[in-house]
C-alpha cells in the first residue's frame, strides 16, 4: 500500500523530542492533543507510527506554574486572554511501526522521526494495517513507563472501532493478547471486560 500524500494542513502537532522507541510532540492547539490510545503518524520520508500514551498541558516556561484564578475558562478568556498563550499541550507516543513503500510495518523505524516533523492522525486503513494482528501490542507490553493495560484497552478500542466493532476481530486480538500476557487469566479477563464495556 503506497502512502497517501501527507496533508500538512491537517497536522495536529509537531515533534519536539524524538527517539527510536518514543517521541514527544507539541499539540498545534492548546488542549488539542489526540486522545489517549490514538494512532498517530509523523510526516517525512519515513513516516513513523505511534500510539499516544501520555498527554500533558503546562506552562511554556519550565520554572513557572499556572496559577488558579477561580474563574471559568470562558471568563478567563475574556478577562485574561494572555495566559493561554503561556501554556502548551504536549503528547507522548510510543513507536509501533513505520511506513515504507509497502505500507505500515510493525517494526521500529530505522531512524526516529525528525524533530519538527508534523504529527497527523492515522487514517482508518493505516490503523487496520497496523493492527491486523496483536504484534503491535508487543511494543506496548515491552515499553518503559507506559500505563500498559489502559493503553492496550484504549488502542484496541480504536482498532476495533476502525473495523466497525467487528466481534471476530476482537476475539482474535483477545487470543493474541492472551498469549502475550502469558496466560495471566485475571489480567486478561479484566482487560477484555473493559474493552467491551
Amino acid at each position, binding site marked *: 500500500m503506497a502512502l497517501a500524500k501527507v496533508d500538512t494542513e491537517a497536522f495536529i502537532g509537531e515533534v519536539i523530542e524524538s527517539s527510536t522507541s518514543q517521541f514527544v510532540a507539541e499539540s498545534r492547539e492548546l488542549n488539542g492533543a489526540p486522545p489517549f490510545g490514538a494512532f498517530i503518524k509523523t510526516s517525512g520520508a519515513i513516516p513513523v507510527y505511534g500510539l499516544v500514551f501520555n498527554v500533558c498541558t503546562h506552562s511554556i516556561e519550565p520554572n513557572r506554574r499556572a496559577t488558579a484564578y477561580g474563574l471559568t475558562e470562558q471568563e478567563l478568556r475574556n478577562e485574561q486572554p494572555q495566559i493561554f498563550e503561556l501554556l502548551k499541550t504536549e503528547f507522548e507516543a510510543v513507536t509501533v511501526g513505520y511506513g515504507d513503500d509497502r505500507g505500515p510495518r510493525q517494526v521500529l523505524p530505522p531512524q526516529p522521526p525528525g524533530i519538527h516533523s508534523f504529527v497527523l492522525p492515522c487514517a482508518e486503513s493505516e490503523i487496520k494495517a497496523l493492527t491486523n494482528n496483536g504484534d503491535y501490542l508487543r511494543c506496548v507490553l515491552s515499553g518503559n513507563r507506559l500505563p500498559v493495560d489502559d493503553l492496550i484497552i484504549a488502542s484496541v478500542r480504536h482498532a476495533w472501532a476502525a473495523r466497525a466493532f467487528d*466481534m471476530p476481530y476482537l476475539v482474535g486480538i*483477545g487470543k493474541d493478547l492472551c498469549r502475550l500476557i502469558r*496466560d495471566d487469566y485475571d489480567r486478561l*479477563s479484566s482487560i*477484555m*471486560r473493559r474493552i467491551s464495556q
Partner: protein
Amino acid sequence: MNELWDDLNGKPMHDLNNNQIGVVTKGSLTEGVEMKLNPDRSVEDVKAGKFVVIEGYKNQFFSMITDLSLDATNPDILLYPPQDGDQLLHSVLNGASTYVTVALRPMLMLEAGEEVVDEPRPVKTIPSHFSKVVEAEEEDVSRVFGSEDRDDRFFNMGTPLDMDTPVCLNLNRFVERSNGIFGKTGTGKSFLTRLVLCGMIKKKKAVNLIFDMHNEYGFQAMKEGSSGDSFVKGLKQLFGNQVALFSLDPASSRQRGIQPDHEVHIAYDQIAVEDVVALQDELQLNPTAAESAYLVAAMYKNKWLRQLLSVDGPGIEQFAEELGANKSSLSALHRKLKRIDSFPFMVTKLEGADAVDTMMDYIDRGIHIVLEFGRQTSMLAYLLVANILSRRIHEQYIKKSEKYYASQNPADKPKQLVITIEEAHKFLNPTTAKQTIFGIIAREMRKYYVSLLVVDQRPSGIDEEVLSQLGTKITALLNDEKDIQGVLTGVSNAAGLRSVLASLDSKQQALMFGHAVPMPVVIKTRNYDEDFYRAMGDLTEEEKAEKAEAASAALFGD
C-alpha cells in the same frame, strides 16, 4: 447477537469449506496420536468413532477418533470460569487457553496414491508434528473400504458417521474365517445378521445354513420402530428359490402363512453321545452321567438313546446293573433326557429322506438353508438340533474336503459353508466349546470349508480361544465391561476401541473390525428397506407382474 456468538464458538462442520479439524500435537505409536481441535470447530461436532485422515508428510493415516478431552493451560481459569454471559471472554479463551484435545488412533497407513491391497499394512510410524487432520472425504472412504461398483467382493454395509459413502465389507475375506456379530438385545443384531447374510447370498460367496431360533430370517420378521411395529422381508422373500426353508415345527410355520420346503425330523438313533454331552450345561448333567451315557452307547451302539428312554422308572436300576453303571447317575441321565421325548420333531423312525442328506443336497446346489424352529424355542431343542445337524454336516464336509485334497479336482471342491448360530455362548462357552462341534469348527477355521457366523448378546460367555479366532467382528452397542473386553479379545490396541464401542448409539450403529475390513470403522448401518430390497434384486409387485407376462409371452407367444 446470540447467533453471532454461536458462529464464533464452533461453527457447524458442514458450513466450513475448509475441512481441517485440527493439528497433530503429540503422539506415540503405542498410545496413538493427539490432536488439538481447531478453535472454530465445536467439540460437540466431533464424535468418538468418527473416521478422519491425518495428512502426514509422506503418508496418509486413516484414523478413528477414540477420545476427547477438555484442557486448560492455566488452572486459574478452571477455578474462576468466565461468568455466564461473558461470551467475549469465553470466545477469547476458546482455543487459546482452553482447548480440546482429541485422541486419534491411526488404523491404516497409505502412501499418497497407494490403494488398499488385500492385506493392509499395519501402521508402523506416526505423522509428524502439526500434520493436518481433516475429515475423511468420500473418496478416502472408497479408497480404504472399496466400493461395490469396483468389485463384486465388496458389499455395502452402511456409511461412516456423518457421511454418505458406503463402507464395504470384503466378502471374500469375510467367508474365509468364522465371524461374530454382537450387541445388546434390541441393538439390531438380527438386522446386521440379515444384512451380512443378504450380502453373502447376493454375491454368492458362500452357502448359508441358518439356525433360526426366533423365526426372523426366513420369512418376514418384525421390525421394532418408533412409528409402531412393521414387518420386513425375510431371505426367502428376497431371494426366492435360492433359499430353502426347513422347519422343525411345520404347524407353526403354516400358521404364520409360510409353507416350508421341508420338515425336519430327528430320529433317536441319530443322536450321538457327543450331542448329549454338549447339552451338559443346559441339562445340568454331571460328568458321571455323561460317562454313563457312554456306557449305554457302548452296549447298544446307535440305539442307545432309544433303549435308555424306553426303560421305565423302576426298571432303571436293573438296567444300570446290567450295564455296570452307577444307578443314581444313570437314573439322573434318564430323568433328564426324558425331556427330549417331549419334542414333537423326535421320531422313532424316519419317514422319507434324512434331513441332513436333503440339506447336503441343497448345499451342493448352492441353495441356502434357513431352519426355523417355530414354537420349539426352548434352548434345549435349539442346542440339540443345531448340534446334531452341524455335526453330521461337518462330517460330510470333512469327507468332501479330503476327497478334494486327494483329487485336487476343482469340481470336487466343496462349497464354502457358513453356519449361523444365535445365542452362541450356549454352544461356545468355555466348558462346552471344547466338546461341541461349533467349538471345533471355530478353531479349525477354513480347513474344511465350514465357518461360523456367531450371533450373540453376551460375548463374555464365549470361550476366549474361540473369540480370538473370529476373523471379523461386527458389534453393536455393548455396555457390560466384560462383554466389551470379550469382543476385543485378540485385537491389538484395544483401549481406543473400548471407548468407541461403549459410545455407540443403541440403534443402527455398529463397529466393524477384523479380517474383512482394512481398519476398524463405526458405521451407521444400511437401511433395511425398499431400496435395499431392490439392490438385492427384489422386484416390486408391478415389475413381477410385468416379468411374468413377458415370460408367458415368450413361452406361449402373443
